């Protein structure tokens, strides 16, 4: 089973929920941090890393001795990632979406597939919990292909918890698609609610069941609960604001370590999720 933890708005507590849920469930669980632009789960899990691999994507490399400057590569490329200007062909590798069109179309077979590094994946563990995250190379624009590589480590027989990035565009979709359940972490503020509605829309397009965790549940206003009630989105857990929790979070400590009574609550959260997934 795959549970993806998303939010719309950033900073609502996705990583807090993902890490504490994973640690509460313990051995045999996988935690994949798919917020590859700003991965944070490792700062709370403190995993022992055993392996690191670079992840690349295909980009054109031109053999100028074979190229006759026909310009077909520039015609097919929708991303302006390869152009013929005067007597040279110029690949702009940072713009390339790796569709392979230029290689396929080149009549002289002058283009071969080189590589652009997207980032790296690190694999590790903590007390039987398997931990994997991606780190996008600073300056690289495209997160989704790296996210898909991180997700490829999901084991079909295991429980996989995914920490998704904020927002509602392609990196979030890449982190939610194919999940059995999306847990949306939000806060009862106007920004939290506005972005939650967008996230619920994205989950709806994907046709995945979802439920809410309300963080800092005693701040803000009632509009979030009214919305959840009207849309029949179940509220599965509420975490009130607690300065001690906030301070320990700031030091990279897990909620279940600082307030052990929360472990039970995260286990119950998991039970509620499995109940909601079952009917399928």
């Amino acid at each position: 089973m795959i549970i993806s933890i998303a939010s719309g708005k950033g900073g609502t507590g996705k990583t807090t929920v993902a890490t504490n849920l994973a640690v509460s469930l313990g051995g045999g669980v996988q935690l994949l941090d798919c917020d590859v632009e700003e991965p944070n789960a490792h700062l709370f899990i403190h995993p022992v890393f055993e392996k690191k691999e670079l992840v690349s994507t295909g980009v054109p490399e031109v053999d100028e001795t074979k190229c006759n400057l026909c310009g077909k590569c520039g015609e097919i490329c929708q991303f302006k990632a390869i152009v013929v200007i005067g007597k040279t062909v110029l690949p702009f590798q940072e713009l390339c979406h790796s569709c392979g069109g230029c290689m396929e179309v080149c009549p002289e077979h002058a283009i071969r597939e080189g590589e652009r590094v997207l980032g790296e994946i690190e694999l590790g563990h903590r007390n039987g919990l398997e931990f994997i995250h991606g780190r996008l190379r600073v300056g690289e624009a495209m997160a989704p292909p790296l996210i898909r590589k991180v997700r490829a480590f999901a084991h079909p027989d295991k429980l996989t918890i995914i920490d998704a990035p904020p927002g509602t565009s392609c990196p979030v979709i890449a982190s939610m698609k194919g999940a059995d359940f999306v847990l949306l972490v939000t806060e009862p503020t106007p920004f939290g609610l506005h972005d939650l509605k967008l996230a619920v829309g994205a989950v709806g397009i994907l046709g995945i069941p979802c439920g809410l965790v309300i963080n800092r549940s005693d701040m803000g206003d009632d509009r979030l609960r009214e919305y959840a009630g009207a849309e029949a989105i179940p509220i599965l857990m509420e975490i009130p604001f607690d300065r001690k929790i906030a301070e320990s979070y700031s030091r990279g400590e897990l909620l279940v370590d600082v307030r052990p009574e929360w472990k039970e609550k995260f286990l119950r959260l998991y039970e509620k999720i499995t109940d909601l997934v079952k009917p399928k």
Partner: protein
Amino acid sequence: MKELVIISGKGGTGKTSIVAAFASLAVNKVLSDADVDAADLHLIMNPQATERHDFQAGHSAVINLDQCTACGLCRDLCRYNAISEDYTVTRMDCEGCGVCVYFCPEKAVDFPLKTCGEWYLSETRFGPMVHARLGIAEENSGKLVTLVRQEAGKAAEAKKLDLILTDGPPGIGCPVIASLGGASAALIVTEPTVAGRHDMERVAQLADFFRVPVMVCVNKADLNPDSARDIRHYAEQKGYAFVGAIPFDPVFTKAMVAGRTVIEYDNHTEAAGALRQIWQKVSSHIGLRAA
């Protein structure tokens, strides 16, 4: 004309509330919201749109099944697995590369332009604002960010305003890259947490990469004063201007619920005082004339 972009790396550090506060303090400016896939600034600014435009970018393949002979070439060539066994294209998976369109022997693939969202030119109580709405699950957020910033620049020029205040997106990927290019300066709003610190370092590296001068401020500073101090030292060591710290204050949430800026809501809170000082430093740092 100057453009200040507010970014953070980590989400939820207070970018939008701080941009809104600056909107209360700055004069002669245009507001732009570059967080196009989860835009929130309008919830405080209450903009009245004077112009509304479709945002069109990229194409999406559509197979015309009357002409398709199911030869399978498109499915072989598509690197995004966007074409199903019954030859329909999943729009969400289609990257718009046009490879299937080009190679289809039957010319059975249409390639219409996609409408991915909308953008608006609006009036607010603080002056003009350019903002947008990316369709849910759509692509091309970077192009929409670039468009919003360009239109904000045009609005500033038309009204002879000398500042663009841009609310940036979280992260370091495509929309953040699109927010930074060519900006006069970036203000990183971070928080004194391990995650805030980690993410600030990465987004600061990105700003360095694009040669955009960096300023740093710490929000919710009293949640971990040691970490706030470390961030200040880090910034100074790296040659970034450290422009101040803001205490953790429920007034941020209260102002948001009321649809007001922190300055409008109560100008006498400690947070409001800190924001005024920060704005003073930021504006002198980027060379704005004093109001």
